[in-house]
């Protein structure tokens, strides 16, 4: 109740003050009139009244203090005062705010990426309850797939479960076809997830009827492919040539339960099975994944125990886990994992890939913010020195030091607040910039990430911490300084050397931090350049890759046959603009089906470290030519000569690494070796007929491994990748190839064209982002150094105006003065560089796993960073130096 009254009082504060004054005036008059009645003369009466009244100002303050606690009142007063002070020095305020905005903004931008990538939960209610059961099927492996019967047997307990299956299917919208990601969900799915539709409705149990197939599209699909058409409900799209009616759109941000969430459309599971969009080869085939919700009070361990028990009782088939040698077999069991942040992809741990680099970046921006704080702190120091006189007067009038420190801290908080607002703008703009065109844009919906409460809270905490850091620097000086001395006129203009040490030390610190960031930037940029130029072993330019897939088409049973491959190649080669073409099971960077086998040499000899697992790729003739891999010795692979009828022999090619590993410099041509599958007893004898150059098949970073190349054989491959070398400048070659392939095998799935060059760039996404960001931070650090050096040198010059005046009066030239200023500036830089260089090396070692082709001890890179800093420092010293030179000795001496 009381605080309500307080607030009401505050709202009319000015009026209340006036009223109180009027009341007191009346009281005083009445007292005076009273005294007059007792026969005192008017003047005495008035004075007597005043004496009885006491200190009116103090009384008004006391009256006010009833309403507003003293401290809060002081704080508000200080706030108004410092705000006025800031407005009076816009230059300082602007520089300080910009420094802070850059520092805080960079931190917020990286944090928002981290939040979106690592921390953010699925956009569903109570996401932390979501779990997924998996079968533990081997020492290494878990399998999240179950059969529909298993799920139904597990349902009914306290843990709600629903099933779904993801598939890629060709979706046709108004004649335009594309391969999209389809999530087929069961009737309990949407209820379990707990979301509704933003347009239309979500699936309901009666939608399982096959007669009128319906589909719910995701928001991302709706925006990307249908332009957020508000009239989308009722439209018909064809999934695998089957018409589906759109009945709803999921809420913004929801695209399935995986991470990254990439589902485009969602259809009922039964419909998907009926139309072959999800295949169920037999009734008990494990085709669905299960997502569940544990009761809120249960722990993950409890959930796992319960579900495992249920599953073991109903569904465990008695399969056992294959143990490594020497260990006891154990029965297959169930494990339950938390998927509140989405189900991660099995093969590629996207989170893991980016975690480390984002953490390194977080450290980098924290350093940047520290540098910005140091900058602002030294600016505040310079300013507080100028106000030392004013502060001394305040102390003399009775202000406690605590009060002064509070005032300075309030000023810092105001600057930090402005910096935070600016920082949010910088972060918003910055994270958009980062996300454009890189992998991160797919992973994190930058739009929603920008202003979530988590981000705002983070920004607030960072700003307050920053304010405390840079605010305490001038504040501590106030507490320690001998303010009485500053009251004296001499003290006002003295060139106390001691005061300069802190300022210059701070700038040196800033230079050290900047050196760290700049050298880090140069290391990462060099890494990127090295990776781009690294010897790949093949030529990526003008190469297009197409995936030809027989799965789920009429050709599925036979797979890719040699005859079909031949036909396709002949037709494609005949096209104008196509210089060469070849098929393979695996292409560099873009992948395919990777396969490894154990290789043994005849006579049972194996290389020293045991049976070598080597990669092998099935190829057709002219695959190497298409890629630009030179055939160094012997001939290319030729399937028509390949399999000799009676024996299991075939002609293969190997790469140089293979030749080196297994044949140690002997001529490998004509040599034989065996290859064998894990546990497979039939093996093939391979005769080496050709040696090809080494090529990096996985990514530019990985060193070349031994590989051998077998001819494409029938029934082996359900899909193959076609590499076509096209003449430059022909943009239509890709489309004509697709059409040609489709005409030879109508209905077959053709994915592509994917330009190989772009794929390589894509594989370097992480390095690109790191280099880009590090350069950005390095540039910001340099800007902060420029401001810092300028500030402190200007202050030094102003402090030493008298000294400079005397020097010039005594005959020093302008040249000499400039030299003096520059020397001082360079000495600061020197200290900073000495401190920063070892820091830079340490930091380089910390990220050495990210580097390629450049070591953290790289001297040229460090020297380059140092020279950049020196150049910046000199440039920003020029203006203060000029100011020093223009000092008129007469004026300064006269003011003595």
């Amino acid at each position, binding site marked *: *109740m*009381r605080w309500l*009254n*307080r607030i009401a*009082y505050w709202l009319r504060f000015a009026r209340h003050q006036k*009223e*109180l004054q*009027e*009341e*007191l005036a*009346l*009281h005083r*008059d*009445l*007292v005076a*009139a*009273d005294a007059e009645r*007792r026969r005192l003369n008017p003047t005495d009466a008035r004075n007597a009244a005043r004496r*009885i*009244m*006491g*200190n009116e100002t*103090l*009384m008004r303050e*006391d*009256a*006010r*203090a*009833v*309403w507003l606690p003293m401290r809060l009142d002081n704080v508000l007063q200080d706030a108004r005062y410092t705000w006025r002070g800031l407005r009076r020095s816009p230059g300082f305020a602007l520089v300080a705010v910009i420094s802070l905005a850059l520092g805080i903004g960079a931190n917020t931008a990286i944090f928002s990426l981290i939040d979106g990538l690592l921390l953010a939960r699925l956009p569903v209610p109570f996401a932390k309850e979501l779990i997924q059961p998996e079968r533990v099927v081997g020492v290494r492996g878990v399998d999240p797939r179950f059969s529909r019967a298993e799920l139904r047997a597990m349902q009914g307990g306290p843990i709600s479960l629903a099933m779904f299956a993801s598939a890629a299917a060709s979706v046709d919208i108004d004649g335009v076809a594309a391969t999209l990601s389809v999530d087929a969900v069961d009737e309990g799915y949407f209820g379990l997830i707990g979301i509704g539709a933003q347009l239309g409705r979500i699936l309901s149990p009666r939608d399982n009827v096959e007669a009128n197939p319906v589909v719910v599209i995701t928001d991302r699909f709706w925006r990307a492919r249908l332009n957020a058409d508000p009239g989308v409900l009722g439209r018909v799209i064809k999934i695998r040539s089957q018409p589906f009616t759109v009945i709803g759109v999921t809420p913004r941000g929801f695209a399935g339960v995986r991470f990254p969430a990439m589902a485009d459309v969602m259809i009922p599971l039964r419909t998907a099975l009926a139309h072959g969009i999800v295949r169920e080869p037999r009734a008990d085939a494990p085709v669905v994944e299960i997502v569940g919700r544990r009761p809120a009070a249960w722990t993950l361990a409890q959930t796992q125990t319960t579900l495992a028990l249920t599953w073991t009782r109903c569904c465990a088939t008695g399969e056992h886990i294959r143990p490594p040698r020497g260990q006891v077999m154990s029965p297959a069991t169930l494990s339950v994992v938390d998927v509140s942040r989405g189900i991660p992809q099995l093969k590629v741990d996207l989170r893991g890939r980016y975690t480390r680099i984002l953490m390194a970046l977080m450290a980098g921006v924290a350093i940047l913010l520290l540098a910005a704080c140091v900058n602002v702190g030294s600016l505040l120091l310079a300013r507080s020195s100028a106000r030392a006189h004013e502060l001394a007067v305040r102390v003399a009038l009775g202000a406690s030091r605590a009060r002064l420190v509070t005032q300075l801290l309030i000023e810092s908080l105001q600057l930090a607040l402005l910096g935070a607002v600016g920082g949010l703008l910088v972060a918003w703009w910055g994270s958009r910039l980062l996300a454009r065109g890189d992998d991160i844009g797919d992973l994190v919906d930058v739009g929603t990430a920008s202003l979530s409460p988590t981000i705002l809270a983070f920004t607030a905490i960072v700003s307050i911490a920053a304010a405390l850091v840079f605010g305490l620097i001038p504040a501590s000086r106030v507490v320690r300084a001998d303010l009485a001395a500053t009251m004296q006129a001499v003290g006002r203009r003295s060139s106390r050397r001691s005061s300069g040490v802190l300022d210059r030390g701070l700038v040196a610190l800033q230079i050290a931090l900047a050196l760290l960031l700049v050298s880090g930037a140069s290391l990462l940029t060099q890494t990127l350049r090295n990776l781009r130029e690294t010897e790949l072993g093949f030529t990526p330019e003008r190469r297009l890759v197409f995936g030809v897939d027989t799965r789920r088409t009429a050709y599925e049973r036979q797979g890719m046959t040699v005859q079909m491959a031949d036909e396709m190649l002949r037709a494609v080669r005949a096209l104008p603009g196509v210089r060469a073409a070849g098929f393979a099971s695996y292409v560099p960077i873009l992948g395919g089906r990777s396969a490894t086998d154990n290789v043994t040499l005849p006579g049972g000899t194996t290389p020293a470290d045991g049976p070598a697992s080597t990669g092998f790729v099935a190829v057709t003739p002219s695959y190497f030519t298409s890629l630009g891999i030179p055939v160094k010795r012997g001939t290319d692979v030729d399937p028509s000569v390949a399999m000799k009828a009676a024996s299991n022999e075939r002609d293969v090619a190997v790469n140089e690494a293979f030749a080196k590993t297994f044949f140690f410099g002997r001529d490998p041509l004509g040599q034989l070796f065996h290859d064998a599958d894990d546990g497979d007893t039939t093996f093939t004898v391979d005769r080496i007929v050709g040696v090809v150059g080494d090529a990096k098949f996985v990514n530019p970073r990985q060193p070349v491994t031994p590989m051998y190349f077998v001819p494409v054989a029938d029934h082996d491959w359900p899909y193959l990748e076609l590499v076509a070398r096209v003449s430059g400048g022909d943009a239509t070659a890709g489309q004509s190839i697709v059409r040609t392939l489709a005409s030879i095998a109508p209905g077959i799935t053709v994915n592509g064209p994917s330009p190989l060059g772009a794929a390589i760039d894509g594989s370097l996404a992480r390095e690109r982002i790191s280099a880009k960001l590090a350069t950005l931070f390095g540039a910001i650090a340099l800007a902060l150094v420029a401001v810092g050096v300028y500030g402190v040198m200007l202050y030094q010059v102003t402090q030493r105006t008298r000294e400079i005046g005397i020097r010039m009066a005594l005959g020093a030239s302008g040249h000499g003065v400039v030299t003096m200023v520059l020397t001082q500036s360079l000495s600061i830089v020197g200290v900073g560089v000495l401190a920063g260089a070892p820091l830079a090396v340490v930091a380089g070692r910390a990220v050495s796993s990210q580097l390629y082709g450049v070591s953290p001890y790289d001297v040229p890179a460090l020297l380059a960073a140092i020279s950049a800093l020196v150049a910046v420092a000199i440039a920003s010293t020029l203006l203060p130096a000029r100011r020093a030179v223009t000092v008129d000795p007469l004026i300064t001496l006269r003011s003595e």
Partner: protein
Amino acid sequence: MGGPISRSVDSLAILPGTLDLLILRALRHRRLHGYGIAQRLREVSHDVLQVGESSLYPALQRLLLDGYVRAEWGVSENNRRARYYALTPGGRKQLGAESESLERMLAAIQAVLRYA
């Protein structure tokens, strides 16, 4: 003038809140402005209690904050604008409760002074 030494009410600091209580009592049957309250207290106590104005107005503000009195602008005897204070129902209740406890306290002090 001579007579009993006028004590400023600050000497009543031994019993905190006493001034607030006295003000409430003064307002029990009538509205008064600030000076009027001080005068009333002086009159009834025969000039012993001369409320220091530096205590009076903060006390009045306290009472306003607590909601025990309310204030309105009116016209004083000599036709000047003055702020009149009156008890609120809450103030009346507070007055009753506090008087009782103060009287108990006073009786206790008296007993100690007489018989201890």
